[in-house]
């Protein structure tokens, strides 16, 4: 029983990170129908920027994270403006390939600037806490709480503000949105900004419990794709639920099935789902 609870907690931690990454991915997909393969690279950059702010300028963890959100968010905007906007009318093949090009570039760029080695980010919340036989560090608690807070804020933004509702409107119908006078370009840039920001938050939160290195985005991005397919591409609740499902299935799968094969489990799950339902579990629209 005790181990089950501990593992559920572990799953919750890792699921929170997955959800945040998947959210950014699904937002962009929902609005622009781009599977942004470069999203993992944005995640990685977020980690590096936070780390650099902390080590080079001795900035406080939270401020470093804030800078990282802004920088990666702006990078997302640049990508939208100078790459994906130019490809909006192109065949669907093209933006996928452009995204792969960006991914390769950003990874080489990170290695160029920060080197290939592993870095650690020391957060101020390294303390170990023991409650009712449950062991965790404050950082892990922080991940869970912050992720939920970010999701709630995002929800409020999308539902309660005018700008947010334009995003929702556009994800439902791009033509419709432009008919009612929504500036599509603005919304697209905004979406990329939020998406990049979410990636930066996720990596800044997760880095202290892991390592920062050029390939760190790979680990997360493939799983994020699995998640958004699980949850229906473009679906926001789907990304959140999917993230936690994958987090739990990994921690429980490693405990009760096999640690060696738990990665394959996620991908096989995906293949089965798409086999049965080619457009994903909670697909919306008829596309």
């Amino acid at each position, binding site marked *: 029983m005790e181990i089950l609870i501990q593992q559920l907690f572990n*799953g919750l931690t890792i699921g929170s990170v997955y959800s945040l990454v998947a959210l950014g991915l699904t937002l962009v997909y929902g609005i622009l129908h781009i599977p942004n393969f470069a999203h993992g690279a944005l995640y990685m950059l977020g980690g590096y920027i936070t780390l650099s702010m902390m080590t080079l300028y001795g900035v406080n963890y939270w401020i470093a994270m804030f800078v990282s959100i802004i920088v990666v968010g702006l990078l997302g905007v640049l990508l939208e403006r100078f790459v994906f906007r130019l490809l909006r009318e192109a065949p669907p093949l093209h933006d996928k390939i452009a995204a792969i090009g960006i991914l390769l570039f950003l990874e080489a760029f990170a290695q160029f600037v920060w080197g290939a080695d*592993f870095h650690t980010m020391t957060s101020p919340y390294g303390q170990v806490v023991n409650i009712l036989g449950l*062991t965790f560090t404050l950082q892990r608690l922080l991940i869970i709480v912050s992720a939920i807070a970010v999701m709630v804020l995002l929800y409020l933004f999308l539902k309660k503000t005018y700008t947010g509702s334009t995003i929702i409107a556009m994800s439902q119908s791009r033509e419709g949105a432009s008919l009612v006078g929504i500036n599509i370009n603005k919304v697209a840039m905004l979406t990329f900004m939020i998406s990049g920001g979410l990636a930066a938050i996720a990596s800044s939160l997760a880095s202290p419990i892991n390592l920062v290195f*050029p390939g760190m985005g790979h680990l997360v991005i493939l799983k994020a794709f699995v998640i958004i397919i699980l949850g229906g591409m473009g679906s926001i609740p789907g990304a959140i639920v999917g993230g936690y499902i994958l987090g739990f299935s990994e*921690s429980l799968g490693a405990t009760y099935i096999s640690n060696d094969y738990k990665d394959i489990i996620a991908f096989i799950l995906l293949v089965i789902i798409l086999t049965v339902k080619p457009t994903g579990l909670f697909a919306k629209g008829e596309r």
Partner: protein
Amino acid sequence: MKKLKVLFVFLLLTITVLTGCNKGDSPVSSSGSKGKGENVVNIGFSGPLSGAAALYGKRTLNGVEMAVNEINDAGGFEVDGKKYTLNLVSLDDKYLPNETGSNAKRLIQEYDTPIIFTPHSGGVLALQVFNEQEEFIIGAYTSEPAVTESGNSLTVRIPPNYEGYIEPFTTYAMEHFGKKIAALPTSSQYGKDWTEAVLPHWEKQGGKVVYNSSIDFAKETDFFTIVTNALKKDPDVLFIGGASEPTAKVAKQARELGFKGGFIIMDQAKLDQMKPIAGSYETLEGSIGVLPLMDSDEEAVPAFVEKYQKNYKEDPSSEVGLNYIAMYAFVEAMKSAGSVDDAKAIRKHMQDGLSNIGPDQKIYDIPTIDENGGFASTIVVGAVENGKVVPIR
């Protein structure tokens, strides 16, 4: 649109020009006189200089490079009455065996290298397909047994066989902590081989294996889950290992989860590289692993460390040191063989090469080379006691 076209053409031109300039020049070259002059011996290196393993590749290269620079700065070396200098030619193989193969072909064709260093087993195996035919020695930095078991006559395996570590590691951990072990090694082939060697020995000594599962450091995003599962079995000792940094993370998280016992750290991970990740040696208290070069009590070490730190702004690791000493051994073997290009003769005189290594270079004690071409080093292990690494003999 027009402007962009111009830009694109410009980009292409730049690349072409870069390519053109580079023709005939060595692709990457360290110090020493370049070119194919009569008295220059080209030494080849093919290893990962980009991608995830780049750091590791760079360190192995640094070791060779430092030896080459030292030898050239001292005016080269004399073989059969002629003075030679060394020229190191390094190529990136991205850790991919086929790239190692291509690089080797290139090194032989364009640089006529009698020795090619490569720091990964895949690359070594790919080279063994044709190294006897093309007559060059592989300076194999890998402790993968298959590399020397295949009976290739021109392979020199630089690092010590890991089997020598098993006995001292087991004895130390059992004496200090207890008989229950949980294994959490890296999922690489190397990690698995290690596990298969160490666990049976542990059981033979009366120990008990309570948990055994590998971690894939390239795919795992959080180790908490698996460490939780391992600690549930209440082990006295954890067997961990793989790349230093993630291994340190595993150790640290085990401590966070309340583990009080000792660690056996397989030789791929280096205590000194683990320290910054773990925070301090306190976290790693009770670990036993390879003695970091920094903490070695060989007489040549302090001078070597100082020189390396000056040149490369970091602490030397064992892959630096072993490749460094191997380069010296090769040069000494060339001297004894009386030839700088006859690979067979050089290989034949490797024993002399090892014996003739000067006292200033002797940062490791490698008395012999076995018949399969493996360096048989005197194994010295290190343990963390009271926040410090101490050599255990």
